């Protein structure tokens, strides 16, 4: 079973929920797909033993074969190549590694070379995996693809997604059996939750909601779940203790058996929900 944890809005508690699930679900593999700002390791404290670079292919021009015709720059849809004053300039950071320039070059002057944009790290048994985008790199999708290639079919997989609802989230949740949407009882939490709901519905993945920082003062998320007929899997109350533990890198399921049991129950609900 593959479970993705996402939220739309950042800072609602994706890592709190995905990390707690990883501590509570049997035979589990945890993937931190928030490769721009990975935080899972702060809470799960894995012993990182393996690290492999994520390489992408970028063009390199052989000046002796190039006649500056400009066909490569014309073919590139991402403005990663420009021909200026008889010279071909390549901007490797915005290259999407598609190979169109190689196909477009009539002189066979472009070859592709490897370039590292980040790493995939794991513990010895690959029960914990995280991707890290190098600082100043814009494109993270190739790291997500490599992370997901390491998924083991016989494991329960928990995927901690990036915030938002753009292509990186699509890549992270693709092929998952169930999505857990984490939200908070504020107008912002609800607004971004609705975006996340549209995304998982578009991708036809069963889903349920975890309400974090729940407060008796607000029922907006309950009302939304009721109107939309969405399962509310768990409520984590707003508490100074949970917030302080979080600040130190301690998850609810790590600090108390009671929370561990609650997340086990969430997992049972997920199993049932994924079959619906």
């Amino acid at each position, binding site marked *: 079973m593959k479970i993705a944890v996402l939220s739309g809005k*950042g800072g609602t508690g994706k890592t709190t929920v995905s990390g707690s699930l990883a501590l509570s679900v049997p035979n589990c593999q945890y993937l931190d797909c928030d490769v721009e*700002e990975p*935080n899972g390791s702060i809470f799960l404290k894995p012993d990182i033993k393996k690290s492999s670079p994520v390489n992408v292919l970028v063009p390199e021009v052989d000046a002796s074969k190039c006649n500056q015709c400009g066909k490569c720059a014309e073919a590139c849809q991402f403005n990663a190549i420009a021909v200026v004053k008889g010279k071909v300039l390549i901007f490797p950071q915005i290259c999407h590694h*598609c*190979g169109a320039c190689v196909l477009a070059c009539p002189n066979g002057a472009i070859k592709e070379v490897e370039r590292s944009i980040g790493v995939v790290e794991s513990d010895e048994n690959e029960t914990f995996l995280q991707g890290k985008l190098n600082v*100043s790199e814009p494109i993270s999708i190739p790291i997500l693809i490599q992370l997901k290639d390491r998924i083991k079919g016989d494991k329960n997989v928990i995927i901690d997604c990036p915030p*938002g609802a753009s292509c990186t989230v699509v890549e992270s949740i693709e092929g998952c059996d169930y999505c857990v949407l984490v939200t908070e009882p*504020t107008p*912002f939490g609800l607004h971004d939750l609705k975006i996340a709901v549209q995304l998982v519905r578009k991708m036809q993945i069963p889903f349920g909601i975890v309400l974090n920082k729940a407060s008796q003062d607000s029922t907006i998320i309950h009302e939304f779940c009721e109107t939309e007929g969405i399962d509310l899997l768990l409520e984590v109350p707003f508490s100074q203790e949970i917030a302080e533990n979080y600040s130190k890198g301690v998850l609810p399921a790590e600090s108390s058996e009671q929370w561990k049991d609650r997340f086990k129950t969430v997992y049972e609900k997920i199993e049932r929900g994924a079959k619906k």
Partner: protein
Amino acid sequence: MKQIVFISGKGGTGKSTLVSSLSILVKSKLIADCDVDAPNMHILLKGEVLKKADYYGAKEAVIDSELCVKCGICKETCRFDSINDEFEIKPMKCEGCGACVIACPQNAIHLEEVKTGEVYTSKTSRGTFSHALLDIGAEGSGRLVTEVRKNVSTCIKDEEWVLIDGSPGIGCVVIASITGADAVVVVSEPTKSGQSDLERVLGVAKHFGTPAFVCINKYDLNSEVTSQIEDFCEKEGVKVVGKIPFDPDVVKALREFKTPVEAGNEAVTNEIKSIWEKVSESVMNSES
């Protein structure tokens, strides 16, 4: 006119709360929300949309089934696994790179522009506001951010400041938000994850040569991490321009769509004023 971008690395640290508070306190300004896939500023600014435009920020391959002979060359060429066995383009997978267009011996494939979102110009009681919404799961969020920033610059009359609400992360959206800005203010929080994310996002600002300031929100939640953040900033030569105390009333007011300034929260308001004084002075002085 000076552009100040508010980012955080980690989400949910209080960017939008700070920017919407400043949108009341700063006199001569325009406002932009560059968090295009989970925008929140419009909820607090309650504006009236004056102009709405579809944005075509990506391309997608289209296969003409009449011309296609199913030779399979496009599938071999595509590095994004976006062509299915029936030789149709899989939704949300195509990058719009055009490699298949070049490779197809039948000339059966062409690229079409795809709508990826909407860009809005709104009138609010606090000034003109530029924002956008990315279509669900669309490509090209970075380009949409660039469009929001272009849109806000066409609105400038004689305003002194553009206040830009950024997005979490360090990737393309953040880079598009800070490129060419006069300064970034990183809104951090004293948690282990907030600290780690702050360090990475400051690295991005440094790489692109954008002057950075740090403000620590809810600083009293964990004084140990707060002082570690202060030490790190000092070592990096980044000024900590303010520390905002944790106050459950801030969240309570936000639930009623009110910033701490509107809710009359004096302690928080004064700290935000002081943050702005330090940032604005420093940006103005660096010019001379």
